[in-house]
């Protein structure tokens, strides 16, 4: 059975991905702070007959990433599929954005995914099979006011993933980006009812997205049947960027 590592899997989109993939794979539930929630996700996968382990890491820290992979590889040999999902926001308009707000978001959302991908890719090359999936955002394609740092980090993932796809395509490894639109998670819970109505107005599909809408596409991209899809950016946004 293949092993999947989902970062930021204690809640939101990452949790939904972990639960969906738990049906077919051994799932490593990566978390930074929410140990209890991550353990619950792992337990839920086990209850449904799957195999799962919650692993703490700070993706912004290379040593922490290495330690997490060492732990995973002790139990499961290698990570076959890496879902780079973990991310943070520190919103501010550009004239007021602090260096820390910029650096923290870039370090976690972009550099952190460089660390995890670099660590995972070596075993994938050796194994001549692998899947990298980056959870970006439509904000990385369209931009968003107050999110210059977040949008830059999410756009950066597109260049990272496309480059990886060209480097390792010859080894049956694909790399793709999913760009979610407005998805019902903690990260979008601040949107009030009036704004919510305005957002839905802009969409072709008249509802907010659900984490499962993302998880279903991730599940397909993990499969052998998706082997001819690589270096792509797939928006899942109810038609927002159409």
């Amino acid at each position, binding site marked *: 059975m293949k092993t999947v590592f989902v970062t930021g899997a204690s809640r939101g989109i990452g949790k939904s991905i972990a639960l969906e993939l738990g049906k077919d794979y051994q799932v490593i539930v990566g978390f930074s702070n929410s140990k209890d929630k991550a353990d619950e996700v792992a337990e839920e996968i086990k209850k449904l007959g799957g195999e799962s382990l919650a692993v703490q890491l700070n993706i912004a820290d290379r040593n922490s990433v290495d330690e997490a992979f060492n732990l995973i590889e002790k139990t499961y040999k290698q990570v076959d599929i890496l879902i780079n999902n973990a991310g943070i926001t520190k919103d501010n308009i550009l004239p007021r954005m602090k260096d820390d707000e910029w650096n923290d978001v870039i370090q976690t959302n972009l550099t952190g995914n460089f660390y995890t991908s670099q660590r995972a890719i*070596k075993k994938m*090359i*050796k194994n001549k099979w692998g899947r990298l999936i980056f959870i970006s955002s439509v904000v990385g394609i369209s931009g968003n006011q107050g999110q210059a740092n977040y949008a830059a980090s999410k756009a950066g993932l597109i260049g990272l993933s496309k480059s990886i796809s060209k*480097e*390792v395509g*010859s*080894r049956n490894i694909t790399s793709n980006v999913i760009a979610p639109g407005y998805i019902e998670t903690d990260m979008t819970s601040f949107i009030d009812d009036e704004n919510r109505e305005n957002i839905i107005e802009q969409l072709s599909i008249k509802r907010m997205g659900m984490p499962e809408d993302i998880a279903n596409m991730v599940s397909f991209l993990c499969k052998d049947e998706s082997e001819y899809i690589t270096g792509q950016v797939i928006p899942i946004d109810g038609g927002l960027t159409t």
Partner: protein
Amino acid sequence: MEVNEVFDKVKSLFEEELGIDSEKITMDAKLEEDLEIDSLGIVEVVMAFEDEFEIEIDDEELTDVGTVGQAVNLLHSKL
């Protein structure tokens, strides 16, 4: 371990990991031109060397390695 023993191990790793025809693998064979190993292939054989000989190879050590013989000598010097 003698140099010729290292060469034999290297030869079998090249055959197993990269599917290279054993007749082509000589001490003088150039990794890129003669054996057609690309940069990812080098990464693969280095990982295989590290596992087989239980050593660590830094990228800097590889800069002067262009032939099978140079790879064998590097490995021999590290054992």
